[in-house]
């Protein structure tokens, strides 16, 4: 009897704790995490930007990770969270949008795309509960209305349309504050790109998991523009130049 009880008590926690065991395993072998991404609306569409650092615990896993992707011609998706899950989610999302377009002969509406992504985030909920969270940002140019629109997500698949800007990831708070202070209705492309770059700079200044500009290796944040002409990346040389200008401005302000 005592033996049975002993066996029983030993067995029960083992069975019920499979979830926490997986979480513990994840903690033992930490997977890379991607960090800060931002999106902001401007006069002709949206700007999306992300730093390039992926961390694994207190280590830097990657210095040149890409976190901003084209979802299709008129939309972009940026990721924060567990890098492996997130990149795979983006890959599947891209295939699904293209598949829909080819089979139906027409593209999904921007809201349709946002809903589709929400379902994928929700499907990831069991893994999110074990620590493998994926929190994307989705933004695009609404060809019907002629404006840029931004959608943010939480780990449960909840998605919310943002009015002007949003940031997510470990440095998201600092990035958001920076954008909040500098954002104006009807900003031009140059100002908006500068603001996105500044927000990532400030986030990297406060958050160890967010990478700043890497002048030694020449690695800069990825900045993408989505407007009536579609998705395209801001050339790396332009981002580097704007970073140079930003640093010069900050130095001049400190010297005053």
């Amino acid at each position: 009897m005592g033996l049975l009880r002993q066996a029983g008590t030993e067995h029960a926690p083992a069975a019920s704790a499979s979830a926490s065991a997986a979480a513990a395993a994840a903690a033992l072998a930490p997977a890379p995490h991607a960090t800060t991404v931002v999106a902001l609306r401007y006069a002709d569409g949206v700007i999306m930007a992300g730093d390039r650092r992926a961390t694994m615990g207190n280590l830097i896993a990657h210095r040149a990770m890409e976190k901003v992707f084209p979802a299709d011609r008129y939309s972009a998706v940026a990721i924060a969270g567990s890098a492996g899950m997130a990149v795979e989610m983006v890959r599947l999302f891209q295939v699904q949008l293209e598949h829909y377009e080819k089979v139906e002969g027409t593209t999904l509406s921007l809201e349709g795309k946002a809903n589709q992504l929400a379902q994928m985030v929700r499907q990831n909920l069991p893994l999110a509960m074990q620590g493998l969270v994926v929190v994307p940002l989705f933004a695009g140019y609404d060809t019907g209305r002629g404006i840029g629109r931004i959608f943010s997500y939480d780990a449960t698949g909840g998605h919310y349309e943002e009015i002007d800007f949003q940031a997510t990831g470990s440095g998201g708070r600092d990035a958001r504050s920076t954008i909040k202070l500098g954002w104006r209705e009807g900003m031009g492309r140059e100002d908006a790109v500068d603001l996105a770059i500044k927000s990532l700079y400030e986030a990297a200044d406060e958050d160890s998991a967010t990478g700043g500009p890497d002048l030694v290796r020449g690695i800069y944040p990825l900045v993408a523009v989505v407007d009536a002409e579609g998705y395209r990346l801001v050339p790396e040389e332009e981002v580097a130049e704007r970073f140079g200008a930003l640093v010069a401005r900050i130095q001049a302000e400190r010297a005053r």
Partner: protein
Amino acid sequence: MSMPYYVAPEQVMKDRAEYAQKGIARGRSLVATTYDMGIAIVAENPSRSLHKISEIYDRIAFGGVGKYNEYDQLRVAGVRHADTKGYAYSREDVDARSLANLYAQYLGNVFTHEMKPLEVEILVAELGSGDRPDQLYHIAYEGTITDEERFAVLGGDAETITERVAASWKADWDLSAALKAAVAALAGPDRTLAPGDLEVATLSRGNGRIDGRRTFRRIADEELALLLA
């Protein structure tokens, strides 16, 4: 009581082939030809929304003639096959040859095992890259597959149209010349086809969509009128 009766297999196949040919001949034809920048596909099709020509993958296009519901089902299966393969492996692992073989096997199976054969002919066109040439696969209703590197004609009137295209075909002609010749071949000497009667698409090198990987593009309205003028 009904008597079981014997029909020679030759007769069964002949009847089926005749049935399929009749069905295909009722529809309009399609011409695909290579030109200096890629592949142009032209079909006689007054509908703006029910397509005969479609995109399958980055460098692969689909063309179908005959019964719409039957070839459209094949088109969707092709898109699914290509997208699944590209997702599971890599985009460059998706090729037209395997897709054309899949269509050939399916059409062949239906032709021999089902009561009714499919009344369709299928074109799978692939834009070449590197040392791979442009490729046109023509799959007939009974699963016969032929590959062409110059041009292909699908549909009931294929023989006469083939003669007309062959007479005017030139290597490395430009898009406008290729389209004019294809349209003239489809129309024949007694008819003229307006841009509104045509469905035209190309797979072309230098179509920059997103990162330039999707090469399929439809040509319609003013752009088509301009090219045919």
